[in-house]
Structure formats: structure tokens, C-alpha cells
């Protein structure tokens, strides 16, 4: 990496270190010391992505993973996993760590793993502690002080200045300060030292925020042999969905969002998510939602593990099947409402939920504000029939933006006799109007004087041309002699 004094080495492999190359050495010196040295450009972003990917991949063991540090220096980068309650799935804590390290080794990472009751102790032991031949260290529950004592001070995650300061007074190992009085230590070296020590020993708690929020429910399905066919993937999804639906029913909930993650044999992962508009726990319906998305999943060299988790769920009471109770308010049966919800789910998951909508009226007399789109099954907001509801006819199609047109109209207030829109001329045969729609003067951001009120009023006319097409045009502003009037086309009638 380019740094002060030219290009410097950032990370060194053990073989190169044996040959006399060290981190921080200028590249030219390194090449002089060790001929035949291979170098690669340091790429911090790629390193960050790799560590993120690794932390995400560790999600196969536990959903609670955190990236500890991004670095390309060997022995520096790390990932935290909180495996509370997950170890029994893998046959014990040591078996879990062994599985993790062997898979990482297969993909090409050389790693050390440590397991302890506190994050601080695990961090220290993984970096500085003694590990067995599989590079695993498990700290027994009551042996934290004993295990931490021989480790160097840097294992407490302190900054370099504090470590140096401690070294200058002869405190080099963690065991040196375990029995010292705390107040002078805190006064001399700061609160951080005591805090880190307490966190490592478990006296003070430390929480790690997981990378992604931990889902409420999840199911996993490992495969003895990697699968890659679409039918097998579909069958596995069905199995997972059935499992989850049973557990949702037991907890009287319905899923609103489901995430499927596939772990491939080469250490990568891919996934897909579906959402529902109403809480659902019908296995057929959920499986159909996934069926649309199976083609987009790339199995790569094979999938060895699938997990399905429910990040969001809603309460859903027990549903009576087989009886078509009439929903008195809606007027349609409960089953029909469910069928409609499922249709909206399927269409929304394929096209995007924003593209399935309903129109609701809004309390405004300005035409473009009188109507808006809401998601299809959301309950309609209460709009009472107020004075804003116009009895005048409105067009079937409204342009998103009123389009300026050139108009020939007798002054001052008569409807147009001819107008040109784009390149076509329309000769008016019949017209009706005007309907005056004024601006909303009660809104805060509108100017309140009479002149601007006149300028923003619109006089709408319904006109019919020689073809029989009926348009809704308006003139903006009242007629003022000398000023050319501005005309716009706002919509077309049926």
C-alpha cells in the first residue's frame, strides 16, 4: 500500500516473515532482502467485503454474528459469534468450533477460534491464548482469571498508548493488574482499562449488536450431499415452510415476511425474501410465493444448507376452516377475502408491492390531490362526504402533469374554439363550463393575498372536438387584458 516513504508492505505471510520481511518495510527493501517475493496490492474495501461475507456465512451457526475488525494483517481480522443456545444443534461447543474451522480451512482461511463466557475473554484467548492442535480454545466457565492471567496486556483491547504506559511501569501481563487496587489504576490510566478488565472477567456486561436483526423464528435444513436441482430446492422449501407453519400455529402468529438463505459449498450464500399483506401461516400459500422466485436462485456448485427465517410476524388467531362465515361489514365471505389477500400477495411479490394498489379519495378539491393510491389491502382511511366531493363530472384519465396547450378562445371567459396539443389540432364542437377551482388558501405555505389567489385559480372547461373526444382543459389565472392566458390539458373523459 502507498504510504509515507513510498510503497510499504502491510501484511506478511509466515514464509516471508521467516525470510526477513516485516510489516512496514518499504517494498524495495523487502524485494532486496528476499528475492522472488510475490506482492499483491492491498485493497481495504475488498477485505471489508470479505469479512462481511464471512460474518454473514457464519449465520449458518447462529444468527448473532458481528464483524470484529477488518484488516489484512494476519491475526488481526476477526468475527464474533454468539452461540448461546445453538451449540446443541452441532453436537457440542467443541464440535461447532471444529466444524467452523474445518469449513473455513476448506475455503482457504487459516483461523483460530476461542470460546468463552464473555466477548472480552474470547477475544483475548483467540489472539494471544494457547490453542490445541485444531486451533481451538475453550475457556471453562470458572477459569477466566486463570486463563487470562498469562496473556499480554494487548489482549484487553486497549489502545497502544495505554499498553505502552503500562509496560513502562512494568505491567505487561493481565495477571499483573488482576489483584492491584483499582482506584489508582483508573486515576493513572483511565476508566477504559478498568472497564475492559471487568468486561473480560464478566463483572460488567458487554453487548454485541448483531449484523442483521435476529429473526423471531427460523428453521434450518442441512443436506448430506449438496443439491442443485430446482425440484430438490422446491421440496426443501416445502419442508421448511411446513416446519415453520407448525411453530407459527403453536405461537398463534402468522408470518408477514420470510427470508430464505442458501449456503453453497464454496462458502458463499444467496437468498430471497417474500412478504405477505396479511399475516399468513398457510403452507400452500407461502410455498407458492417462493415458487415464483426459485428460478432466480443460483445454486452454484451445490447447496449444503438452507435456512428459512421469519423476521416479521403478526398475531393471528386460530382460523376456522370449512365454514364460510359471512363477514357482515364487508359483505363478502371470509374465504373470499383470504383468496383475495393471497392473490394480492402473489402479484405483489412478483411485480413489487408498490404496483398493486387501490384508489382512495382524499379530502381536497384540487383535482390532482383528490385521489391517491394506497396498497391494495390496506384499510381505507375514513373519508366523509364533505364539501370537497364535487358533483361535477370528472375525467376518467387524468394526466399526471397538466400539459400546456395552445388555445384560441374568445375573451374573457369563453371556452376555447380550437386548441393544439402536441402536433394535432382539435376543433371544438361543444363546450361546458367554466368550473372554477381556487387554490387552497388555508394551507400554510400558500401566499394569502388576492393577486396570487387570482393567479392560481383555474377555470375548467369540458370540451368535445370533432372526433367526439372529450377533454378537460383549464385556464390558469383570471383573464387580464394584455397578459396572454395560459391553458392546460388536464384529462380526458370516457
Amino acid at each position: 500500500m502507498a504510504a509515507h516513504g513510498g510503497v510499504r508492505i502491510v501484511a506478511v505471510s509466515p514464509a516471508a516473515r521467516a525470510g526477513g520481511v516485516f510489516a512496514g518495510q518499504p517494498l524495495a527493501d523487502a524485494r532486496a532482502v528476499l528475492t522472488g517475493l510475490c506482492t499483491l496490492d492491498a485493497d481495504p474495501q475488498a477485505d471489508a467485503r470479505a469479512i462481511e461475507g464471512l460474518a454473514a456465512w457464519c449465520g449458518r451457526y447462529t444468527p448473532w454474528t458481528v464483524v470484529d475488525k477488518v484488516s489484512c494483517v494476519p491475526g488481526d481480522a476477526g468475527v464474533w459469534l454468539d452461540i448461546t443456545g445453538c451449540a446443541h444443534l452441532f453436537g457440542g461447543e467443541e464440535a461447532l468450533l471444529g466444524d467452523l474451522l474445518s469449513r473455513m480451512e476448506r475455503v482457504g482461511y487459516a483461523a483460530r477460534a476461542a470460546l468463552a463466557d464473555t466477548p472480552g475473554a474470547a477475544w483475548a484467548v483467540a489472539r494471544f491464548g494457547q490453542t490445541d492442535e485444531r486451533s481451538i480454545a475453550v475457556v471453562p466457565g470458572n477459569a477466566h482469571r486463570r486463563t487470562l492471567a498469562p496473556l499480554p496486556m494487548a489482549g484487553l483491547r486497549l489502545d497502544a498508548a495505554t499498553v505502552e504506559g503500562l509496560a513502562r511501569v512494568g505491567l505487561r501481563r493481565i495477571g499483573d493488574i488482576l489483584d492491584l487496587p483499582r482506584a489508582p489504576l483508573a486515576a493513572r490510566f483511565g476508566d477504559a482499562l478498568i472497564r475492559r478488565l471487568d468486561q473480560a472477567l464478566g463483572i460488567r456486561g458487554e453487548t454485541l449488536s448483531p449484523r442483521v436483526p435476529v429473526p423471531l423464528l427460523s428453521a434450518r435444513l442441512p443436506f448430506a450431499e449438496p443439491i442443485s436441482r430446482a425440484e430438490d430446492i422446491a421440496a426443501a422449501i416445502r419442508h421448511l415452510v411446513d416446519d415453520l407453519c407448525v411453530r407459527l400455529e403453536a405461537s398463534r402468529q402468522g408470518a408477514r415476511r420470510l427470508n430464505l438463505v442458501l449456503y453453497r459449498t464454496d462458502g458463499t450464500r444467496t437468498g430471497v425474501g417474500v412478504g405477505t399483506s396479511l399475516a399468513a401461516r398457510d403452507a400452500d400459500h407461502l410455498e407458492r410465493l417462493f415458487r415464483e422466485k426459485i428460478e432466480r436462485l443460483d445454486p452454484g456448485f451445490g447447496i449444503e444448507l438452507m435456512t428459512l427465517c421469519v423476521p416479521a410476524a403478526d398475531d393471528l388467531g386460530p382460523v376456522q376452516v370449512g365454514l364460510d362465515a359471512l363477514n357482515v361489514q364487508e359483505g363478502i365471505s371470509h374465504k373470499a377475502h383470504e383468496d383475495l389477500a393471497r392473490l394480492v400477495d402473489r402479484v405483489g411479490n412478483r411485480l413489487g408491492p408498490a404496483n398493486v394498489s387501490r384508489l382512495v379519495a382524499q379530502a381536497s378539491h384540487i383535482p390532482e390531490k383528490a385521489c391517491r393510491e394506497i396498497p391494495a389491502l390496506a384499510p381505507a382511511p375514513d373519508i366523509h362526504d364533505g364539501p370537497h366531493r364535487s358533483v361535477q363530472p370528472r375525467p376518467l384519465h387524468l394526466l399526471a402533469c397538466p400539459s400546456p396547450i395552445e388555445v384560441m378562445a374568445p375573451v374573457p371567459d369563453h371556452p376555447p374554439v380550437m386548441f393544439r396539443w402536441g402536433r394535432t389540432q382539435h376543433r371544438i364542437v361543444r363546450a361546458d363550463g367554466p368550473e372554477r377551482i381556487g387554490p387552497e388558501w388555508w394551507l400554510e405555505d400558500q401566499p394569502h393575498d388576492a393577486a396570487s389567489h387570482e393567479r392560481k385559480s383555474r377555470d375548467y372547461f369540458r370540451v368535445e372536438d370533432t372526433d367526439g373526444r372529450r377533454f378537460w382543459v383549464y385556464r390558469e389565472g383570471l383573464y387580464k387584458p394584455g397578459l396572454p392566458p395560459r391553458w392546460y390539458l388536464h384529462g380526458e373523459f370516457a
Partner: protein
Amino acid sequence: MVSISSKSCWPDRGPDRAVLKSLRARISRIESRFAEPSESSGVMTLGAPEIDEALPWGGLPRAALHEVLAGHQSAASGFCAGLLARLAGTRETVLWCGRGRGGLYGPGLAAFGLAPERLILVRARTDTEVLWVLEEGLRSCALAAVLGETNAIGLTAARRLQLAAESGGTSAFLLRSARGKVEPGPAATRWHIATALGTDGDNEMKPRWQVELLKCRSGVPGVALTQKGETTFGLPRSWLVEWRDGTRTPAAGGFAVAAEFRHRPADPVVDEITNRIAAKSAI
């Protein structure tokens, strides 16, 4: 020269309408190309007796595919909005799938009696997606009708939609521009909608269309047996149709025929043959 008097071959007043209808039903059952809608899910009347009579089922069959060719996009949209409003009634939901920015305006739809909570709008990007949405809607049996705006679709796609409509009991409408190639397809009825000028002195400008029934399956459009015995064989019939406003009483909203156009074919030979057949059957 022996002349067989027509009186012995033909009944007195012309073929009886009920007899013809039952014969037609038997033929279609034998051919089983199209089940009689009264057996499956019913027929929706348009509210205009002249158009209802021209259709062999007495109205639009519910579980079928209908094509609407649009001479003008908004005119056809209005006609379809009226049809969907009548199909939705007060309890059922309809789906309208368009491409690009739809632009349907809620208050404008209310004039046709289509309440906003009865309509679901879907925006798709391609024809394939529109067809997929229509098929999903037809198979779900939760809707009264679906409408899709597409370009010309192929025969297989139309056949799939028709089968899905029949099995689900839901009506399907395909709204497309009249400019493309119009090929024979499995649709039960095919309409052509164009704009129509209002009459002089009518400043209300109610919705008005020139509606042409181009074809309908298992029946010949326009076989109207009037008292005079005039018949037109296989020629499209067109009407000037208005919409009766139903905002205050939704049951009253419907189509009303203002006038009927006699469709004159351009080919004199066909004209001659038609006249001869008409003359023979009038005897």
C-alpha cells in the same frame, strides 16, 4: 313447372325464436365448444335490451374471455369501466392491469358506479407480466372480472386465458388497440369501441361510444328476427351507446342505446346474396 310453395316448407311467420335458441343450444352441446353459460355461472345483461338481444346468450357470458378493440384508448376504457362496474356489483372485486403509468382517476370511475374499494389496480411492465397477472386472477376465483391492457397476444395465450376463465367462473377482458392485426381467436365476443359525437344541444356530454359487436362465438351476431323477417347474416352490428348515470342509484347505471347503425358491406356481391337470402326467408 312445379313450384314448391314456400308455404309448405316454411312456417307461417318465420322461424320461431325459441326453437332456434334450443336448436343452437343442442348444437353447441354436441360440439361442446362452449358450454351454455346458464349452466355454469350466468350471464350479465348490459342494461340495453337491443344489445342484449343481439347476443345469443341474452347478455355477456360471465365465465368467458372478451376482447375489446379500442379505436380510442379512453373511450374504450370508459366502456370497460362500465362493464366492470356492472360485473362487480356491490360485493365483488375486479382487477385492472395496465402497463406503464395507468392514469385512471378515482372520481372519474365513480361516475360509472365503480367504487374504489371494488377495484384493484396492477401496474405491469410487459405483456407477459400482464398475461400472468390475468391468469393468476382468473384462477384465484376471488374476483368477479379481470381486465388487462395488452398488445395483440397469440392464439395459445388467448386460449389459456379462456380456459382459465371458464374453470374459474370469472370474466376476462382484453383491452387492446384496434390498430394491430386482428386475428381470429377463442374470445367469446369481440367489440370495437370508438368515440361518438354528441347530439346538438346536448351540453351535458354524457359518456357516448360507437360500439360495434364484431364477432361472438357459437352464435351469429345480428341474427335479429324482427317481425318483418329481415335478417342480416354474420355482419357486425353497431350501436350508438350512452351511459346512464348510476351514481345515486347504482342499480340504474347501465348502457342505453341511442341509435343503431345498419352496417353496409362494401362488396356488392355479398350484398346481392344477402338480399336474396333475406327475400327467400321473408316469404
